[in-house]
């Protein structure tokens, strides 16, 4: 059942990208970043993210995270995160988006010493964006809902536009996971640097 569900989720990701391309009126961006110094050691992670706007007020995005590689293709683990966000506040210097999505965790590593498994979690997002000249600062807050707990992630990102189509950025990710009705919780930290290109 989980495999079937994952398959449907992936189809929905593809569908959302195709749908958004057909209807997009605004800009699309492709970004890639690398990390990470996670907790207390280095571990390679690659992110690839496609974002496009539809009907001015909507953003559709898909992020693919590959674990254990700086070269996008991983045999061990991926996170695929499709999301749709709606612009609720639009000011000159800042904007606020809220959105929903899902976090598809694919774990291919087979090792009896771990309890990892693939799954999909629903996700809520609230993302303020602040603009000043060539600088953009945004700090999304993601809430993932698990069967036995919750995960909160804040992703502050600072971006500098050095060319009409190109930006560089750095992002810190701080996640807090907690299991309901227990005192079991954990912080997870990751850092990334990346580059973004406007493609339309």
């Amino acid at each position, binding site marked *: *059942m*989980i495999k*079937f*569900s*994952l398959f*449907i*989720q992936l189809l*929905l990701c593809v569908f959302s990208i195709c749908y958004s391309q057909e209807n997009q009126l605004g800009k699309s961006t492709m970004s890639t970043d690398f990390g990470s110094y*996670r*907790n*207390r*050691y*280095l*571990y*390679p*992670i690659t992110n690839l993210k496609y974002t496009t706007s539809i009907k001015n007020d909507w953003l559709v995005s898909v992020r693919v*995270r590959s*674990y*254990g*590689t*700086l*070269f996008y293709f991983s*045999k*061990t*683990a991926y*996170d695929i995160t499709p999301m749709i966000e709606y612009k609720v506040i639009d000011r000159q210097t800042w904007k606020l988006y809220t959105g929903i999505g*899902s976090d598809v*965790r694919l*774990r291919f*590593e087979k*090792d*009896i*010493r*771990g*309890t*990892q*498994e*693939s*799954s*999909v*979690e*629903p996700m809520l997002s609230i993302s303020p964006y602040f603009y000043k000249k060539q600088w953009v600062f945004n700090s999304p807050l993601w809430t993932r*809902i*698990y*069967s*036995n*707990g*919750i*995960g909160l992630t804040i992703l502050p990102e600072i971006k500098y536009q050095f060319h009409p189509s190109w930006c560089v950025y750095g992002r810190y990710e701080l996640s807090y*996971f*907690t*299991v309901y009705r*227990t*005192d*079991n*919780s*954990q912080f*997870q930290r990751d850092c990334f640097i990346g580059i973004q290109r406007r493609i339309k």
Partner: protein
Amino acid sequence: MKKLVFFLFAPLLFLSCGKVPINEKGKPIHPFNDGFENKSLSLYDLLLVSDSSINTTFVSFPTRSGNIALKTVLRPSDFVYNGYRTELAIYNSSFYQSEAYYGFSFYIDSNYQDQSYTLLCQWQDLPDYLQGESWTSTPVLHGSPPPLLLHYVDGKLELKGNESTMQSDKTFAISPSIPIEKGKWYDFTTHIYWDDTDKGYIEAWLNKEYITPSNGLDYKFYKRNLFNRSGNYFKFGQYHGGIKPTHSNIVYFDEVKIGSTFQSVQP
């Protein structure tokens, strides 16, 4: 169409919802007891040997208890994975915020000769599988120094820890160097509370005498002993790292035990 997508999406999302990707606290350690009397290594989860018919054999002399002991041989040609080694591994032997006793007897052969170090046992860390990690990253940025190890070099035994998750030369001493006589059995016992903060501790005995220094209250040495919350796993035998042994050396082992009390891991 939108309703169809919603009604398909919502229940599927609910059904496939997984558990929070963090490790449980205080899982019980799996007890282990092997005196090698049945001349089998089937209890071990992993054999890190190049040829078990040469590297790990059973002998009736010397033995610490019972009639059989394990003879480990490490030759200059025994390069397995990324190091010179003859090791046996036991999984599920150290979990986050749990405690356990570990005991085994060892006997350095009278003809043992090597000036470089060998690890008689180590507790090796694991990738945080729940957070997507694995052993085989590209490039390998995370080194694999064991958080705790028992080190034999130049006729002396020393219990050590590793400060760095990245480099194996950032070790620190937990016990003083203890002279070891070749051709004699020693009983090593340790009690460890596993944690990724400095609440983690280890206390250790050689022949039932403390080898960890007193801290004024007891003989527990407090220091982080997990690099992440996946836990460690236990290996014993002979491990030389990347340093090629100059001779074929023999170390005997007997009465390998993991339990919840000091008495339960004695020979």
